[in-house]
């Protein structure tokens, strides 16, 4: 399957805590991306990490990539209620491959 598989399916944390979401895949990749979807809205691209990168930061987001384990993690530090959303991991396996979205992780941040 050319699809990232997110784990856990659902995560509930207290505001201010860190949220860690994982993604595993089975093929070699060009890059891995994380998207966020607020309830009833379109998806928003958060961050892209290429296969030759190990870690990337964007604001409160930190993404790691371990190609030997075929896994990635998205860390949201100091979470806020507004971070409540579904998060999708997407892998790109080749230059002309299509983005394939999984079921996502439902993150709930309690105020």
């Amino acid at each position: 399957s050319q699809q990232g598989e997110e784990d856990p399916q659902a995560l509930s944390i207290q505001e201010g805590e860190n949220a860690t979401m994982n993604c595993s895949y089975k093929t070699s990749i060009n890059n891995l991306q994380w998207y966020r979807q607020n309830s009833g809205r379109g998806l928003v691209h958060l961050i892209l990490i290429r296969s030759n990168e190990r870690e990337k930061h964007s604001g409160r987001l930190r993404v790691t990539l371990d190609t030997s384990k075929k896994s990635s993690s998205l860390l949201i530090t100091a979470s806020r209620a507004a971070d409540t959303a579904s998060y999708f991991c997407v892998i790109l396996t080749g230059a002309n491959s299509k983005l394939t979205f999984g079921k996502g992780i439902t993150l709930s941040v309690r105020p």
Partner: protein
Amino acid sequence: SQTIHQWPATLVQPVGSPLSLECTVEGTSNPNLYWYRQAAGRGLQLLFYSVGIGQISSEVPQNLSASRPQDRQFILSSKKLLLSDSGFYLCAWEPRADTQYFGPGTRLTVL
């Protein structure tokens, strides 16, 4: 800057009725365009993509069709809706071959 529009935002249609959803992109030319469907509790399913006017590729055979009459316009249609067509329809455009930007979506309920 680029903007992507979708309408209508919500739609309730009876089984057997026709469908037309529209997506337009502003601020770019010759984008790759995509239609996805997201059923309740599931990931995104790629329905159609287009790399240019009149060029449509179908990912999933079904009673839906897509057309691209203008460079920045992408239309999703059906002649006769089924109950299983209910879902959240998302249009996306792709400025380069690895990141997509999504519209706000159309919530379709078929009764």
